[in-house]
């Protein structure tokens, strides 16, 4: 029966209730059994099953256990501490592997690691093999301290750290390292053995370009920092790592360039992150919402990107990059609104093409935001604006439609949002279906049924295309949400309503800051910057970094004249 497997747990509890003692008191390790030495590594859950000669302590032990701060030289005490630290044997993926050290020192060694987080090949070849077998070959070091000998001669791991405290042991084990505890030594040795499964660096999914690098961040924290550092080969690139979360800690890295990024900015970012009081931080999206200021509003105050080249360039501008463990998106701050409308490709293309596509993008955003509301305003309130022929054509197309324009528009926009949301959630196998269904609903069928006018299909389609053109996913959402507000205001007050809505948006935008930097800088407030805001000038004119970022060095390029006239043989 299924409960047969659990019977022993009741037995354990019974034993411990009868046999209470306080762990953490020196020498009180009575009843602690030994895990199997050698042979196949087993999880503690398996190792501590109630077999003759083993006593186990679960609930009762945890109730009375006082967690020591420092590692003990006594292996039995350490084992008990580990048992409580990782809630063993309840926790079945924590592995304790006990073995005997080879060579002149005779000692018992306990390796602790998390199954699934480590690379087993590294543990076997770089940890167990040297300690158990190769130690016998080295006979020259018996007089050295045991820990120094192991660290210096036996462990070929690239990152090794001595640990004194149990907190350090816990953090290292949970981060994918293997910690070794040695009989008679009050220190642990952490060996870097991270090796969990993760997605390989692949093509950018949401910020694809034709010209430019195609790689994107992954869910691997260290790979992400590495992708940035591989591009930005300077020792001035600083990576500060802090941990956030009370229940489970998540690594958060803050990257910036020393002597370039405004130190006040770095301190402010660190202050906000370190002051976070959360149980768990799953993603940059959550971090962004927790540290942005002011917290309300629909406009993103951080740039979330999955492109290492974009992060690298931002860092050279004086921005700060924030990486969160296991998240393929990196936050850049401070930003200006214009950066949310820029794609990396703009800079890689020749400037007329970059300026052209940027202009198209701004027009598209305008259409994505306002086209349906303009349609309502013109048809309902200001038909005189249209040439007579066009007005008659619109009137004729709407003749059969039984609904008011605003209802028609809202219905279509709602259908479009449905298709968009379904397109994301639907399994990829049946993905093409959504296109067919959408085309049928929004297209011929709706017109044939006489519930919408053909012109509105064009309006809604162009609006959708316009909003898809926005390079930043969050800003795209902003436009999608605000569009409905403008539709309503146009339905009630025509152009006047749209205008009032735009003024509210303008006041909101000019009052927004991204980590203290005005979002509409360098236009309002006016500041000095390279011509790279709405249009893009030639690359050789991008002399200045944006003044608003407060970078320590404002100039990033020699002046065009100097570049053009410099004699290549003149070393001065």
């Amino acid at each position, binding site marked *: 029966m299924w409960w047969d497997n659990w019977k022993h747990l009741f037995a354990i509890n019974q034993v411990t209730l009868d046999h209470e003692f306080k762990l953490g008191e020196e020498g009180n390790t009575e009843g602690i059994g030994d895990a199997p030495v050698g042979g196949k590594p087993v999880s503690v859950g398996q190792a501590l099953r109630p077999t003759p000669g083993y006593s186990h302590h679960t609930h009762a032990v945890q109730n009375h256990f006082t967690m020591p701060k420092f590692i003990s030289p006594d292996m039995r005490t350490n084992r008990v501490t580990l048992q409580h630290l990782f809630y063993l044997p309840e926790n079945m993926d924590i592995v304790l592997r006990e073995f005997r050290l080879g060579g002149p020192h005779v000692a018992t060694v306990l390796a602790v690691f998390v199954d699934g987080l480590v690379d087993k090949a590294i543990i076997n070849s770089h940890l167990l093999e040297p300690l158990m077998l190769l130690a016998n070959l080295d006979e020259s070091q018996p007089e050295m301290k045991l820990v120094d000998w192991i660290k210096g001669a036996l462990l070929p791991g690239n990152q090794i750290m001595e640990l004194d405290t149990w907190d350090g042991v816990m953090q290292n084990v949970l981060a994918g390292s293997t910690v070794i505890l040695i009989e008679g030594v009050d220190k642990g040795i952490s060996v870097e053995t991270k090796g969990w499964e993760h997605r390989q660096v692949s093509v950018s999914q949401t910020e694809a370009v034709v010209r430019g690098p195609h790689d994107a961040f992954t869910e691997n924290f260290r790979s992400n920092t590495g992708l940035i550092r591989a591009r930005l080969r300077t020792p001035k690139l600083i990576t500060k790592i802090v941990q956030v979360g009370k229940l489970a800690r998540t690594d958060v890295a803050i990257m910036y360039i020393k002597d370039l990024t405004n130190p006040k900015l770095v301190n402010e970012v660190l202050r906000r992150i370190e002051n976070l009081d959360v149980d768990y931080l799953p993603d940059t999206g959550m971090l962004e919402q927790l540290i942005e200021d002011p917290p309300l509003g629909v406009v993103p105050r951080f740039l979330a990107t999955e492109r290492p080249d974009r992060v690298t360039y931002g860092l050279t501008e004086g921005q700060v990059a924030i990486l969160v463990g296991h998240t393929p998106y990196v936050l850049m701050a401070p930003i200006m609104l214009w950066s949310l409308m820029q794609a990396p490709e703009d800079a890689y293309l020749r400037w007329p093409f970059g300026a052209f596509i940027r202009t198209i993008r701004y027009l598209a955003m305008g259409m994505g935001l306002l086209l349906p509301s303009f349609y309502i305003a013109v048809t309902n309130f200001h038909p005189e604006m249209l040439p007579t022929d066009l007005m008659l054509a619109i009137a004729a197309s709407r003749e059969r439609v039984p609904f008011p324009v605003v209802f028609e528009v809202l219905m279509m926009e709602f259908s479009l949002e449905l298709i968009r949301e379904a397109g994301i959630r639907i399994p990829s196998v049946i993905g093409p279906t959504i296109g067919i269904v959408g085309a049928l609903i929004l297209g011929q069928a709706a017109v044939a049924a006489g519930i919408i006018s053909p012109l509105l299909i064009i309006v809604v389609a162009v609006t959708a295309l316009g909003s898809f053109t926005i390079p930043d996913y969050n800003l795209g959402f902003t436009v999608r949400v605000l569009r409905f507000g403008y539709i309503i205001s146009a339905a009630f007050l025509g*152009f*006047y309503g749209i205008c*009032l809505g735009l003024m509210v948006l*303008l006041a909101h935008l000019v009052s927004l800051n991204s980590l203290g930097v005005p979002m509409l800088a360098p236009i309002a407030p006016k500041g000095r910057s390279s011509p790279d805001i709405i249009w893009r000038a030639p690359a050789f004119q991008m002399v200045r970094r944006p003044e608003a970022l407060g970078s320590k060095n404002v100039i990033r390029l020699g002046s065009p004249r100097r570049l053009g006239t410099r004699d290549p043989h003149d070393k001065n």
Partner: protein
Amino acid sequence: MPKKRMPSFRIGRLGVPELTSLLIIYSVSDVFLSYPSRIVTEGATSGWMIPLLAGVIVLVVWLVIDRILKKTKTTNVIESLATWVPFPLISVVLLILSIFILLQTSLILREFTEAVIATVLPNTPPPIVALTFLLVVIYFSTKGVEVISRAALMFMYSFIAGMVLLLVLPLSWFHTVQLLPIWGNGIKNIAAYGMINTSTFYQILILLFLSPALRKESLRTKVGIYSIIVSAVLVSAFVIVLLGTFTMPVTEKMTYPIYQLSRIIYVSRFIQRLEAIFVFIWTSAAVIKMGLGLWFTAYLFAYAQKIPVYRPLIFIFALILYMLTFLPPDLPTVLSLAGSIYETYGGLITILLPVLLVLFGYFRTPTAKLRYQQEEGRRG
């Protein structure tokens, strides 16, 4: 009871382009309402000279005031006055200014509401138009002058583009001969109305209170000069185009001449009847103007009453503003009040009062006294 200290409000930092844009929009936005037709009534075919002459007068006054402020090393006029004038006197002056701006804002709100109803929303009840507008104005005011000035700068680009289009596109109807006789009702008439119309230039009054928010004292001069010149030239250009397009007798009878100007635009089948587009420019300019007006009212009132915060007052003044807006029974009464009282006697507040305050300060500040004593000593 402990004596209350003068409040010190943090109004943020204002840049030169931001403040210049704000002052230009504040002064020029009247041109979208009935102001141009009144100028044409006053100056006939030479009406376009009136804003230019008024601008020159205001510019000279500003340069004098600025020089005095520099000599007395005054950055904040109110705080400077508070050192040697009893506070009740300052309080009265500030209250007068606050009430003046509130009444003027209410007149413009009413005129604007009537304009929106007459032009683009004929079937919408006036309170709806005024209320929705006022809500946006309140939002602007609560954001503070820093945000209003930045919004003014952002809007300035489309404002200038719209102005240029509005001046250029109707040129197919323009006839130079309609500007003749060049001196209109005579030079004396131009001079008299030029003097009176200085009341429509608010730059000096606003700069006296907002210039401390500029980064440098020297920038104050620049802001004043640029904003006065641009405002005078823009208003004058509109009057020229109106006269050349509609003739003097027609223009002076129009309630909203700029709206009529936008109605006659016909460049091709697809560029015609653009008045709805220009609603954007009118409304945006009016929001900025009235946002600043409401903010200023609350700000000055808080200063006058030593109230440590001014933002809560904005809602109270907005309510008063709404009530005052519908106090005049009809549009002709509003136009009459605007023309015969505000534009005729407004100069006493917008020009004369700042001049008196600054001159008063000049002769009473320790620096002036010291200089006087030094000169006396030199004379022996």
